[in-house]
């Protein structure tokens, strides 16, 4: 099976092609076909996992060469796929969660006229994402990287006749482009320093540049920071995060698949995969950690200020990925991966459940207009509660294990300040996720419409996701150091040194749980207990409410930063065009006209002046001849 790993991305690609060309004739079958390709990919990935596990620990690596891709002078690159514990983990997440989301979409997008096109895009996205994680060299990874960016654009702007959606798609593409450009520079630098782009040579123990010596620390830092820039863009961390909240204009399945479970985690994958480069740099890892922590706190605060359900979840995603970056920055790569896997489950669950809410209430997402939906949508309420509590970190749900491991690592590795901030972040995340739970499903009913529960086709996949949200932590990461996932990924990611600083394990555990429970309780008190008038908050504290709701006005800042030079430059170009270019052209014409005003002066019509001129010429000629001879 390992040799046939190429089938896993090939099937969704074929599915996309079929749906593009014949989708309109297939009706609902288009959706089942698309889901089948991804589900088949999942099955094949499981088989590949089995094959991989049958190999001893340190030999769990299989590289398949597909074909010679680029040959340009001295630059030669093959298309090779790499199956190792890290990539197979990502493949399983992408195909597993992806298949469930596909099935959900069959029900969600049932009435959409471009049903088949949606599934074509979804399949295409899965193909590119799989290429990204299965690539064995940086250029193939970049291919997948760009491809998922493209599909994100197509899917965010799926309802392209809505200006908000079209603008959001443009914004996403352009913002991530900034990161992508930096990343490409990073890849070029890799080539310059290593003369190869393959993971085995760049990241492995036999890495060397053409001269046999290792590149300088400066080179490593430069490469790492450039790759980090790409990751920051794709994973919506500070400062390239502005596209993610707007990306919620796309359908909920898109938000679930792309902007929760898979694409936004590509940045984490990149950092984790290239951790050798980051470690050789040293400073780069610190930058990762700082960005992660800052994004986590920032997004948490912003999420509390949002009234749109999906935007609150979007900021939540940003915050959770911040935690993943934080973990990676500390060197705790397996911890980041554990959070990535668990987050995929519960965040997809949360997004799809909000899709249920929108489906049941004709697209309403403003939480001020929701409330008390528990009675009419009990199943959805249950899913949301499971997802929210998992994210909050209530044991024994998945988020608890993942987050606790990371926060504790900060403490035990001696990073006290980071531990305190991370704990605050953990408190805030529980707070910000309990808020939509209580606002939407508990408390008073604030809308008049009757909300109907989602059909079984949509709720069935959610059951599996909920199962994952409940059990993933228990199964994969029961202990911080010797969990199943830790041991599985150790050959690729190494074993992090947890250290022995700080309070003991029990104390840390208690603090974690305590914070989570406290946060949920506070959230209950504010938003569900009817004892706090939270609706009056924007009026009583308009400034603070404004800062939170507008995510600290970063969007406005960027708009101003881009607008002012943009408009100025535009005006400059316009003036240049008008004065210089048009001026030159028109000016030439005007000059010619001016000059030609002098020409008729010699055409007086008087024969005598013509004769004079004529005879002057003769005299001159005579003079010339006279002087010659």
């Amino acid at each position: 099976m390992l040799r046939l790993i190429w089938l896993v991305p090939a099937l969704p690609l074929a599915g996309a092609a079929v749906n593009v060309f014949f989708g309109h004739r297939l009706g609902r079958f288009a959706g089942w076909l698309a889901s089948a390709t991804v589900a088949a990919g999942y099955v094949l990935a499981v088989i590949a996992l089995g094959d991989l596990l049958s190999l001893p620990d340190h030999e769990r690596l299989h590289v398949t060469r597909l074909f010679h891709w680029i040959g340009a002078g001295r630059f030669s690159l093959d298309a090779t796929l790499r199956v190792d514990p890290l990539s197979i983990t990502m493949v399983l997440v992408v195909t597993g969660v992806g298949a469930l989301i596909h099935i959900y979409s069959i029900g969600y997008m049932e009435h959409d006229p471009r049903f088949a096109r949606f599934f074509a895009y979804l399949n295409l996205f899965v193909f590119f994402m799989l290429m990204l994680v299965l690539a064995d060299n940086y250029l193939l990874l970049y291919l997948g990287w760009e491809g998922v960016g493209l599909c994100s654009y197509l899917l965010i702007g799926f309802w392209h006749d809505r200006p908000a959606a079209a603008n959001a798609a443009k914004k996403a593409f352009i913002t991530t482009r900034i990161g992508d450009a930096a990343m490409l520079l990073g890849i070029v630098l890799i080539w310059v320093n290593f003369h190869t782009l393959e993971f085995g040579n760049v990241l492995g123990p036999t890495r060397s540049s053409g001269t046999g010596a290792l590149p300088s620390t400066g080179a490593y830092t430069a490469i790492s920071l450039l790759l980090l820039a790409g990751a920051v863009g794709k994973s919506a961390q500070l400062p390239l995060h502005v596209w993610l909240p707007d990306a919620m204009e796309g359908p909920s399945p898109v938000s679930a698949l792309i902007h929760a479970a898979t694409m936004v985690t590509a940045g984490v994958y990149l950092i984790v995969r290239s951790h050798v480069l980051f470690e050789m740099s040293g400073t780069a890892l610190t930058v990762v950690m700082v960005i992660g922590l800052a994004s986590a706190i920032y997004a948490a605060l912003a999420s509390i200020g949002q009234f749109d359900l999906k935007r609150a979840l979007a900021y939540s995603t940003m915050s959770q990925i911040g935690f993943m970056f934080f973990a990676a920055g500390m060197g705790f790569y397996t911890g980041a991966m554990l959070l990535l896997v668990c987050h995929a489950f519960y965040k997809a669950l949360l997004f799809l459940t909000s899709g249920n809410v929108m489906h049941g209430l004709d697209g309403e997402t403003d939480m001020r207009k929701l409330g008390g939906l528990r009675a009419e949508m009990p199943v959805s309420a249950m899913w949301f509660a499971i997802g929210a509590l998992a994210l909050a970190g209530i044991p024994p749900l998945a988020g608890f294990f993942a987050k606790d491991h990371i926060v504790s690592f900060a403490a035990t590795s001696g990073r006290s300040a980071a531990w305190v901030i991370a704990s605050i972040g953990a408190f805030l995340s529980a707070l910000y996720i309990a808020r939509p739970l209580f606002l939407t499903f508990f408390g008073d009913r604030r809308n008049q419409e009757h909300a109907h529960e989602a059909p079984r086709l949509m709720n069935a996949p959610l059951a599996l996701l909920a199962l994952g949200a409940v059990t993933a932590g228990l199964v994969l990461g029961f202990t911080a150091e010797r969990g199943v996932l830790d041991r599985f990924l150790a050959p690729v990611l190494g074993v992090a040194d947890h250290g022995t600083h700080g309070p003991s394990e029990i104390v840390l555990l208690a603090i974690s749980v305590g914070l989570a429970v406290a946060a949920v309780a506070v959230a209950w008190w504010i938003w569900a207990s009817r004892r706090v008038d939270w609706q009056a908050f924007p009026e009583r504290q308009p400034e603070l409410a404004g800062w939170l709701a507008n995510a600290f006005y970063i969007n406005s800042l960027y708009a101003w930063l881009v607008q002012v030079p943009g408009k100025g430059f535009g005006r400059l170009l316009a003036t240049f065009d008008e004065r210089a270019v048009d001026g030159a052209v028109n000016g030439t014409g005007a000059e010619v006209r001016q000059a030609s005003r002098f020409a008729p002066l010699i055409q007086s019509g008087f024969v005598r002046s013509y004769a004079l001129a004529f005879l002057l010429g003769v005299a001159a000629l005579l003079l010339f001849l006279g002087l010659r001879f």
Partner: protein
Amino acid sequence: MPLDNVVFWVFAPISVGSALAMLFQRNAVHAALFLIINFFTIAVFFLVLGAPFLFAVQIIVYAGAIMVLFLFVIMLLGVDGNESLIDRLNGQRPVAIVLGTGLVLELFFAIRAGIGFSAKAPADFDAAVNKGGNAAALSRVLFRQYFFPFEATSVLLIVAAIAVMVLASRQRRAITRAEQAAEERSARTPRTEPA
């Protein structure tokens, strides 16, 4: 003093003087008359230079035919009125005078460089060239070497005569359609009017 010297020094000033006078005359007839004087002096020069035939032809053709023709046209057109002294074109007169003087000076220097002011004509021109008289000698050259140009110029004269007849004939003015219609209307009207 030798005769030809005297003749030269008498007629040269008359020649140049009459030419200048012709230039300054405001009346066209007076100018023509001065030009006739000039032609006479040139005829004399021809005689002195050993071309008696040309002397005769000059007087007969130039002074006798061409200038008479000029006078006919002047009188016919009645343009013997006085021409105004003001020149419309700015700077035309001064430049023209400068040009004239310049031309003379140039030619003066050219002649001095070419021939020099002391070269005299060979003495025995009559014996050497004008054998049997100038007319006979001229006709010998004319009807032998220059026969073709001779015939060509005769054709030229005929063509000129025809051209003049064509040019000078009074042309009928083209009648416009409006005038034609008016003519017809005026021709028809007496019939329709009651007597």
